[in-house]
């Protein structure tokens, strides 16, 4: 059995003995819980406004369910971006401040082992934050409106993005002397990635709009973590409001996704109109409810992917399947994830390099006092035997 990385083990012990982690986790869940409750109330109120009072909750369920789950994903990412990077940003500079870094460097632990131990601790913490939020989706699970694939893809996406940002935080942490500086810089980076990319996208969109009519997805958005999340959970719906969906933050963001990534409009319309699509057998009879709006013969919809997982709970999800779309175009969430992985890798590389103490000898002889004579062999490395006497 291979031994656990000692740095990782120590980080975990230290983290969970301090009061900070449990307090942070409790606050995080409390805030998230309150947000979910508010979202539920808002969702119900909007449904009322759209369809009049006395909406049958069961038939509107999937719409509300999707609204809730998109809200949950959005706010989990928001809070994780709020709580997560600080921990990583303090890790290496914190060792420097406690003056334990050199003590570590003088042991047989390599720089990579130290960095990976730190990263492991960050991964554990972030995974905990994401998974702890799962029960808050319980109401949404009951209402339906999304598939298991949406959940899994969204969850994996969240963790990968959070870990990549933590890795960047580690890189920044290795560069700064003080933890405060490291934390400020790391949150500055997060803000740039979240708000800065929006700003850049707006500039790009305006710029393009003045030149031609066609405005494609702005490039900077591919660096925005929320944008990728919208794609990962299939939040993109064209004209979603008219079609009867509820405007979740991710749904709004999804408007910027390339058209090919949009969920089929006809399907949305059909679903809200209450049409039974292609007679998918509804297992529980008593849940069948009257259509909200009497439809006027929409074209029959062909479900493109028959192997999709069954909807979570509500039987109406059978005719409301926003997750279904002809998968076209490169998956945006994957592109965003890869970009973040690259940036995270860069952070790890920087941290590992910074933790190295002994530089390669060649650089030393290049910076040594007397310049090497032309034609003479490199002074130190070439002749390891001849070191006895300095003149």
């Amino acid at each position, binding site marked *: 059995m291979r031994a656990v990385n000692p740095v990782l083990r120590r980080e975990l012990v230290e983290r969970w003995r301090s009061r900070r982690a449990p307090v942070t986790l409790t606050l995080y869940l409390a805030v998230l819980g309150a947000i979910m409750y508010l979202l539920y109330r808002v969702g119900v109120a909007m449904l009322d406004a759209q369809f009049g009072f006395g909406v049958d909750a069961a038939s509107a369920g999937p719409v509300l369910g999707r609204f809730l789950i998109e809200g949950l994903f959005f706010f989990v990412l928001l809070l994780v971006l709020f709580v997560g990077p600080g921990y990583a940003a303090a890790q290496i500079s914190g060792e420097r401040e406690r003056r334990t870094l*050199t003590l570590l460097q003088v042991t047989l632990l390599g720089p990579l082992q130290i960095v990976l131990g730190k990263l492991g601790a960050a991964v554990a913490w972030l995974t905990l934050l994401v998974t702890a939020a799962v029960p808050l989706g319980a109401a949404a699970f009951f209402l339906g409106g999304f598939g298991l694939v949406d959940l899994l893809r969204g969850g994996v996406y969240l963790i990968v993005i959070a870990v990549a940002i933590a890795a960047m935080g580690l890189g920044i942490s290795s560069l700064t002397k003080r933890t405060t500086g490291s934390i400020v810089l790391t949150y500055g980076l997060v803000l740039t990635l979240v708000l800065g990319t929006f700003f850049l996208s707006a500039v790009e969109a305006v710029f393009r709009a003045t030149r031609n009519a066609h405005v494609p997805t702005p490039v900077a958005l591919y660096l925005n973590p929320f944008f990728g999340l919208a794609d990962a959970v299939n939040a993109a719906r064209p004209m979603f409001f008219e079609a009867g969906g509820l405007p979740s933050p991710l749904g709004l963001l999804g408007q910027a996704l390339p058209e090919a990534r949009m969920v089929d409009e006809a399907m949305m319309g059909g679903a809200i109109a209450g049409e039974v699509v292609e007679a998918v057998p509804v297992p529980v009879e008593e849940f069948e409810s009257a259509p909200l709006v009497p439809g006027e013969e929409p074209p029959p919809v062909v479900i493109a992917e028959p192997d999709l997982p069954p909807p979570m709970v509500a039987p109406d999800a059978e005719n409301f399947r926003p997750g279904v779309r002809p998968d076209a175009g490169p998956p945006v969430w994957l592109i965003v994830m890869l970009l973040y992985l690259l940036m995270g890798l860069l952070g790890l590389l920087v941290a590992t390099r910074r933790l190295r103490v002994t530089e390669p000898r060649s650089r030393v002889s290049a910076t040594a006092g007397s310049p090497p004579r032309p034609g003479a062999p490199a002074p130190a490395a070439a002749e390891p035997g001849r070191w006895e006497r300095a003149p």
Partner: protein
Amino acid sequence: MTTVEPEQAPAASGAVAAVVVRGLVKRYGRLLAVDHLDLDVPAGSVVGLIGPNGAGKTTTMSAITTLLTPDAGRIKVFGHDPDLEPREVRRLVGWMPDFFGLYEGLTCAEYLDFFAAAYGLAATVRRSRVGDLLELVDLTDKRDTDVAGLSRGMQQRLGLARTLVHDPSLLVLDEPASGLDPRARIDLREILLELARQGKTILISSHILAELGEMCDRVAIVQHGRVLAQGTPDELKAASRGTTSVQARILGGPDAVQRAVAVALDGGALQAVGQGPTLFAELTGGEDAAADLLALLVGAGLRVVSFAERDGGLERLFLSVTDGGRS
């Protein structure tokens, strides 16, 4: 894993060399921290590095313990170059810096266990090693105490235990006695002597001279990044014979003391410094020189309250060797 054979170093006089440093140079920007420093530490000996703050002791120790790359010069630790074979050197060397790196929330036993794990020791080995070390430094009853709750002396002893977790052959101890009360200092010395008896080579630094005099086999006096003299305490004593140190308390504030310094230097003192109301001077010659200086001071109108030849020992030796060598 291969066992490391201590290598016969060519420069050491017959004995196996634990550390050989030749022509070590390290610059920090424009500051020349170490300036062609040569040092020999024979295996099994206790060697003291003595010098004022900023003399280059810590820099030299960092270079020996693989923590920095010298700008020039060569170092061998049991035949290994810290720069080229850092892992071998780290395995052989235990380093105790002049600070205590604290992990809050860990007990003493966990603290040692963590560092033992960082040296790649198996869990079973670690358990007995940690117990042994806590006993050696007399912290067995603090085993489950948070390291943050230890006194300075206990932290220092725990730090010493930390340097021993991987059973190194060479201990590099940077100012281990600084900030300790006399009792704790004696405890520390006892432990170090015990380690020396067990055959560990010890390189120890200090700017407080008295604490090293009794325990070092060899002493190297460092100033401005150079070793000015090294040898056994007896050898150095012999070399410093023929000089006298005196101290005089002068009334009349800093100006008067400064004037006294000038008078002493004009009168041929090797070195003279003022510290508070006291003049310290190093003179060539014996008691006559001291009497002459007193006459000069009084003749210059200075009000001398006390005038005494200073007790010799290493402190005097240090003063004479460091600044006598420069002028």
